[in-house]
């Protein structure tokens, strides 16, 4: 198999560019089982976020003290919590907040990263140097550390958790966007445009930016999963959304107290965080693969 591919690429340029099954553009690649499952999960999650009552007709805040701490059953698929609220309904209801938090945080991170990366990649060597040093300093605060520092300054809460997650993902995005900009800028087609006498602004707008922004779609999709996990971690630590809210991280946090007697309280919200993250990663990967072969 591998030797065949080496031979194929040796016979000439173009011959080994892509496996036969992948040729023919964006839509015609074979869809894998994982991709199909991811799309299905994504549709379900979006339905839950936009029309929660379609999947769970009950009231997520309805209290039923007699049914408290019920194990998963036909009546309550995911069990009930300490006040007898239905966990399944609450998980479905939490999709909106959790997805919204992940999406907003990713947009903030991508936006900041795009601004920083574009500044560094287009405004000359001195600016590039300064922005790079700044990014290196930010990289010295690994993972959640930057987010924790932000929360220390602006106080805990759902809003500052979102901004904190966005902020701590921004340096990574900025670095990738800058590298992509530099690569596109030194490519043959930009050189051709320069030779043709096009202006700097026109080249930037028509040739460089479109080719830099396409990979952002992949980065963003991959990033949503990460952002949701981080935001949930902050909620779990009591620094983001607070327990009465049906946000997945906050639900997990509330279930922590009853971990020995009611495992379902923390298991199911967490399961949906994992599902969302896997789904986002799979979708991001498949978009990336299709772009590369398109």
């Amino acid at each position: 198999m591998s030797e065949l591919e080496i031979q194929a690429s040796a016979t000439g340029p173009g011959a080994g560019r892509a496996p036969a099954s992948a040729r023919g553009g964006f839509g015609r690649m074979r869809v894998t089982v994982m991709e199909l499952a991811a799309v299905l999960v994504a549709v379900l999650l979006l339905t839950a976020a936009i029309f929660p009552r379609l999947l769970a007709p009950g009231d997520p805040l309805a209290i039923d003290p007699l049914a408290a701490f019920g194990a998963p059953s036909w009546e309550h698929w995911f069990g009930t919590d300490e006040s007898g609220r239905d966990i399944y309904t609450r998980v479905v209801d939490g999709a909106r907040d959790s997805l919204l938090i992940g999406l907003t945080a990713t947009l903030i991170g991508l936006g900041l990263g795009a601004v920083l990366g574009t500044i560094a990649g287009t405004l000359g060597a001195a600016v590039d140097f300064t922005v790079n040093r700044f990014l290196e300093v930010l990289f010295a605060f690994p993972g959640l550390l930057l987010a924790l520092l932000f929360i220390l300054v602006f106080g805990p809460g759902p809003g500052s958790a979102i901004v904190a997650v966005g902020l701590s993902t921004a340096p990574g995005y900025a670095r990738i966007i800058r590298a992509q900009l530099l690569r596109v800028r030194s490519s043959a087609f930009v050189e051709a445009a320069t030779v043709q006498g096009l202006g700097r602004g026109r080249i930037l707008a028509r040739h460089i930016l479109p080719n830099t922004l396409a990979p952002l779609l992949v980065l963003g999709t991959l990033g949503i999963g990460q952002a949701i996990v981080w935001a949930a971690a902050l909620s779990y630590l009591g620094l983001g959304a607070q327990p009465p809210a049906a946000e997945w991280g906050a639900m997990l946090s509330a279930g922590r107290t009853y971990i020995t007697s009611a495992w379902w309280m923390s298991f199911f919200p967490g399961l949906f965080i994992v599902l969302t993250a896997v789904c986002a990663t799979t979708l991001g990967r498949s978009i990336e693969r299709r772009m590369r072969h398109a």
Partner: protein
Amino acid sequence: MLWAVATVTFFAVRLIPGDPAEAILGGPGSQTSPEALAAVRVEYGLDQPVLVQYLQQLGRLATGDLGRSYALNMDVGPLVFSQLGGTLLLAVLSLGVAWLIALLLATWSTGRGRLAARIGSGLEIVGAALPHFWLATTLIVVFSVWWGVLPPISTADARGLVLPVATLAIPLAGFLGQVMRESLNTALESPFVLSARARGESDRGVLWRHALRHAALPAISLSGWAFGSLISGAVVVETIFARPGLGRTLLNAVTVRDVPVVVGVVMVVALAYILMTIVTDLASSLADPRPTEHGNGALS
């Protein structure tokens, strides 16, 4: 580098609304007399201009003095270093275990056909997507509540380390494994593997003697980042398993807004992170001597 980190944290902390002297005396709303506030300001040097405070802090940091905690009434330096050991042990053990899992998974599933590769990469994607807080609670439920074989909170002995290390290592192994599999496949398709095969090297020999070194490279350079993510993972894991360490100290300090402790922990973590990056750079140049040997292409 550390100076830059110190500057960023100093000015970030200056943005905090409210009077730090009030925070020291029990937060806003506590009925404190103006005299007590003034005394605290003098004690912590808060009566000086911003620039003087900044220079004073840099001077103290240069001599290894991290200041005094607002909430715990003890020096930050000894506090942070007493907690450092536990977190470092956790991080280093987890990194080692993660490497081991990733290596086994990647080498087991390559060259065994499509199904094995699918299983391998599926496990890695799911592993990488597992958030620490959920994995930890699930492990506690299964191993402590249902089977009762391991303690749910971290005790001092080795048994108490198993669950925290597993929590940190499994997602990391997923990340490392993905990277390793990709570079292993690239390496197995490169000409030097073909030439090794042509010399009559066995499949296993090709894998272990030739391709693995290439596969390990990106994973080694990723280890610096991995270490950073382990430290931020330690915030969650130490909290869940009630394990003393830097992460829990940091979380507590953020919750009560104990600024000097947060700054101290951040400084120490940044220092450890920078050191770790240097170590991984050294390790990758050991595994790949190419840049130092003037293009000799030592692909042994």
